[in-house]
């Protein structure tokens, strides 16, 4: 499974409770769409750390890294290559 499909499936399954791929656009703001809220973002961080074996620092928990599928994918890829 690619990083993208992994992340998409996690969000669809855990926040939208669906496997319908059309319900999540890769560039949609997860916050503005109400997909995640204050507790959701920490769950997402724990999930990414566990799944991809990365360590996310506090200063990295910003919308530029986490607020859409696109942002998360490029953030995780950047982390991986380090």
């Amino acid at each position, binding site marked *: 499974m690619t990083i993208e499909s992994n992340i998409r499936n996690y969000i669809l399954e855990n926040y939208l*409770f669906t496997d319908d791929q059309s319900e999540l656009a890769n560039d949609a703001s997860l916050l503005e769409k109400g997909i995640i*809220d*204050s507790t959701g973002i*920490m769950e997402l961080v724990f999930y990414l750390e566990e799944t991809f074996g990365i360590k996310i620092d506090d200063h990295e*928990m910003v919308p530029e890294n986490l607020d859409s599928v696109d942002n998360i994918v490029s953030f995780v890829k950047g982390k991986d290559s380090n």
Partner: protein
Amino acid sequence: MANLLPIIHRLLGDSLLVSAQKYPSKIVVTTNDGEYAYQELLDYSVALAGALQQRGLQRGGRVAIYMDNGWPALFSLYGVLLAGGVFVMINPQTKADKLAYILNDSDASCLLTEVHLENNFVPILGGLSKLQHVIYAGKEKTFPMSAISIEHFDKVLDKVSRDVYVENRSISNDLAALVYTSGSTGSPKGVMHTHLSMLFALNSLIEYLRLSDEDRILNVLPLSFDYGLYQLLMAVHIGATLILEKSFAFPTLVFKCIKEKEVTVFPGVPSLFAILISSHERSKLKFPSITRITNTAAALPADFIPTLKDIFPNALVYKMYGLTECKRVSYLEPELVDRKPTSVGKAIPGTEVLLLSRDGNSVEPGETGILHVRGPHVMLGYWKQEELSENMLKDDVYPNQKMLCTHDWFKMDDEGFLYFVGRSDDIIKTRGEKVSPVEVENVLYGIEGINEAAVIGVSDSMFGQLVKAFVTLKKSSSLDDKKIKKLCVAKLENYMVPKEVIVMDSLPKTTNGKIDKKRLG
């Protein structure tokens, strides 16, 4: 402006008139998109007030504000107040059906909103008999023609001249706000607060929180939640600065903001403090600028306090208790937080509380009684709900007055400190928000394929309680827990969606055939 300046605060909007006169160039609010001065807030609010009056808003007319925490929400609120209207804050997480319910129930003539919420407000416009105007913030766009006018804020405010505004003739016992809250009947109810009750509560809170015009108050809570709303009202009333964040979703951004803006007051709820503590465990946090932290909505676990004192080395910790029907009931003097670790303190200044048995007799210290509240902060009643109002407002111990029956069980110790025991109804409190099980059950019963549904709260250390649903399905149904949650997400605010849905073959029943919730869980 001289003609607008009140000598004493009679109306909630007077806070802004006075503070703008005293501190015209001082920052009233900082948001993600900038900083705004008191004079700017006054100018925008007066312009909007004039525009609303031009659009037919009369004294006492209701205006709904369905927006994120941000600058437009601020001048919308004061605009409505200065126009003599009654504001109705609606959580931006609210979905279409409930939004329609609140707009209809309040008979709002005007909706102030934001373009990114169009998926919720556009589809319902056809079914709203009283609504005439929608004014929205955000990116301008073209909406399909409808009987209701939809205008952009910039256009509305550009066109209005200062002379349009007619001074507000409201008096202090007129309504200022309807604050919608979940109730045991399943439909949200509008708590009626007057200018008097809100100004009284404001002053009482400001007094015990020891606030001054030098404070910089952080608010990450929704302005539709009265705890969030009062951070704004208090800041404006005393000429302080509000640091307004949309949410706590990206804690790091909030932490940065606390440091940069040298925040002095941090209002939170247990779930928010739990996130803070878990961040602190990942990498140490320290916010020396903060001198007061406040907690309400659910009990602050006593074992949070040592860590919170680590994170906020200079802060007094306030534990408080309240309900929308009177804004706030009690607070514990912060100096007593170690001596009375499980108490929510005593009645707020200028009010009193009584513990009464079911038959109305006072109870001895140490015994459990129902908490009753006396004071000018008590609501007028629920909007258009006489029976429900009578259930909350009981004859006072003094003749011809009313007091608030909270329906919460409390104990009082020998020194008069209050201890929460439990609720006498089945309202769930999760993440600091009230959830009516009936409201969630109604949504479940509306799902094709569900036969029976029961919703309860189960205790949880982080959230206070979690919403848990039990359902039975019709024979032909192919529903499962995920599909049910998905359908709930479309109708309910996030915090109301059951965390867990259990599909059962049958639900336990009492001898007279009702679902026996005591045997669930």
